[in-house]
């Protein structure tokens, strides 16, 4: 046996031990990273799941004309201004009679959400014939009650430490015994805009706002991004000062903190051009500038992955540069470009900081109807709710996060599928 063999043999044990250790570090890193992910997701889901149901209380409301102050033939305007509040109060009083204490009275009214009277309003305006009848209506319970029923308020705590007092508990037990309390799927969350009252707060306006914002972003950044990438990758002269400058700029912009884009939007779009604040248009513009580099870089990578032999082949047959690029290179790069675009859109969808700068942080109840009307977006909504102290808002924040993540995951999934599907052609 040669000396080499002997020398090598002498070191082998140590080398294999090192190998094992190194391997373990790698595995541990992955495990740890994924553990974080699991903790994060379980935490959010655990917190957010309850928000998809809400507690309702059944009231028997007498819709008599005098109480409401209107008759069946009242104009819609009159119907709208009618006094539904009293009707709700009355029905509560009937359910739980004998409440006299001022504090308790206030608490009694607070059993149901402020939305109860609007629920009645909608019913009556839909069908004025209801006036004069007594209707059994499920109305939203107050957020504290909701939280209680989801088991997040501990009855065993001293009274002073909990938001629901003993007398309220008595009422609730009574109502529950009568079968007047039930938990239903929380449609409000998806059909309403923001609200100061957690039980009435929904994400619809934010969703629509996000949709408009993304629409603007996509319709600007995709064509511009692809055109820019095409130019830089296929047409631009090499070693040209301006082209290098553009390249450096794009690469740099991709890594500039998003908040700086917010500053740009604030200073240029709002102050200089005087465009309306809080509008999806501005949000979209800012996000366009922000996602453009991502799309350009992804598109360029996709273009670059198309082998040069394809270009040479087409040129060699007598296709012009432009024909080559548009007929041969671009279609091949499209899956990559689309993947990049979807990922860019996903980033844009999750982006918060620059939108704070341009005032999309406003409290918006109404669903925006155009790209210029004031609106907010989903992540900003999350940010706003996360700041609210109510326990019920925490729930809804998590729920909103779940909705947001669902969107993001599905977008990423589409991107992955797209990539998988078309990668095979190479």
């Amino acid at each position, binding site marked *: 046996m040669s000396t080499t063999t002997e020398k090598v043999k002498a070191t082998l044990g140590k080398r294999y031990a090192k190998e094992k250790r190194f391997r373990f570090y790698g595995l541990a890193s992955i495990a740890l990273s994924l553990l974080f992910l699991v903790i994060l997701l379980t935490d959010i889901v655990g917190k957010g799941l309850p928000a998809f149901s809400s507690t309702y209380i059944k009231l028997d409301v007498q819709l008599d004309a005098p109480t409401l102050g209107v008759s069946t033939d009242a104009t819609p305007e009159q119907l709208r201004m009618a006094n539904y509040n009293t009707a709700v109060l009355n029905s509560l009083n009937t359910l739980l009679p004998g409440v006299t204490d001022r504090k308790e009275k206030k608490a009694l009214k607070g059993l149901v959400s402020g939305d109860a009277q609007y629920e009645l309003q909608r019913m009556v305006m839909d069908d004025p014939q209801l006036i004069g009848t007594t209707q059994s209506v499920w109305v939203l319970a107050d957020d504290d009650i909701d939280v209680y029923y989801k088991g997040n308020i501990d009855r065993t705590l001293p009274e002073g430490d909990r938001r629901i007092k003993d007398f309220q508990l008595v009422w609730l037990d009574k109502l529950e015994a009568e079968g007047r309390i039930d938990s239903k799927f929380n449609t409000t969350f998806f059909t309403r805009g923001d609200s100061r009252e957690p039980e009435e707060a929904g994400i619809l306006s934010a969703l629509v706002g996000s949709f408009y914002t993304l629409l603007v972003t996509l319709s600007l950044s995709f064509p511009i991004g692809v055109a820019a990438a095409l130019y830089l990758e296929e047409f631009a*002269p*090499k*070693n040209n000062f301006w082209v290098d400058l553009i390249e450096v700029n794009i690469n740099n912009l991709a890594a500039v903190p998003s908040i700086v884009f917010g500053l740009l939007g604030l200073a240029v779009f709002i102050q200089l051009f005087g465009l309306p604040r809080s509008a999806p248009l501005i949000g979209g513009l800012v996000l366009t500038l922000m996602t453009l580099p991502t799309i350009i870089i992804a598109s360029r990578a996709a273009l670059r992955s198309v*082998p040069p*032999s*394809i270009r*040479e*082949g*087409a*040129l*060699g*047959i*007598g*296709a*012009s*540069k432009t*024909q080559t690029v548009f*007929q*041969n290179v671009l279609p*091949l790069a499209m899956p990559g470009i689309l993947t990049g675009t979807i990922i860019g859109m996903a980033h844009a969808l999750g982006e918060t900081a620059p939108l704070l700068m341009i005032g999309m942080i406003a409290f918006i109840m109404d669903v925006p109807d155009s790209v210029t009307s004031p609106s907010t977006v989903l992540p900003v909504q999350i940010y706003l709710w996360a700041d609210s102290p109510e326990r019920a808002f925490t729930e809804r924040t998590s729920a909103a996060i779940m909705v947001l993540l669902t969107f993001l995951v599905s977008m990423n999934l589409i991107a992955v599928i797209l990539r998988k599907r078309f990668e095979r*052609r*190479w």
Partner: protein
Amino acid sequence: MMEATLDMTTVAKVNTATSGGREEFSHTISGTIGKPYLDGKDAKFFCRDVNVFYSGDKQAIFDVNMDIGRNEVIAMIGPSGCGKSTFLRCMNRMNDTIEGCRVTGDIRLDGEDIHDKEQDPVLLRARVGMVFQKPNPFPKSIYDNVAYGPRLHGLAANRAELDDIVEQSLTKAGLFKEVKDRLQSPGTGLSGGQQQRLCIARTIAVSPEVILMDEPTSALDPIATATIEELIDELRASFTICIVTHSMQQAARISQRTAYFHMGYLVELNDTKTVFTNPQHQLTENYITGRFG
């Protein structure tokens, strides 16, 4: 015109690259030895004083003069970096696509100056097709690959005509039998040699007059190489073929004339038989016999 250029005396002191360093050689290149010129009638391409410069002052080709005959296979050989590929790419102006590449001199295809302002490089490339080192079928169906050129240049008035062109081109490229049942399957699914023949079919489809081939078999195994070589010989009947190859054996096998390039100079251009049995220039002899330094 022959007399005018024959007395050109570009005497250049040539450094032959050795694999290690550089060693000065005493051989000089003064004009081109052999038979670089043909009768005016026979010449398809006519190249005089072709010089190519890369970005800056780097000169890649020095005063190359040659005629390329109708229906001949002319092979260009020489060590790496000798400029054979660069020269080939002058002929359909593919060098235009390279940044900073400048070509001077007179190159005529059937008497027309290809560098003329009126001459559109795109049209030129339809007349002078090119086949590349790596088979590069487009990731489309076999049919669409071949139909690409005719569509591009509007050569077929209708579908039937296009079908006809595709079939003829594939047949000429010796591929029709093998693929006729799967014209709609992707061209990238073929084997390497078939892909290269597909690329040849694609080039033929626009009925070029000249086909340039840049090491068309260097990515293929010996079997596929043999098939392509055989095909080239058959194509000679209809096209003029210029082929760059790093395998001198290949040049020996398939060409009628062989051009030996050395450091940007065309050292010798002669009948292939002469080049391989009795080369006239010492540099050619050294290269052919494997005396590299």
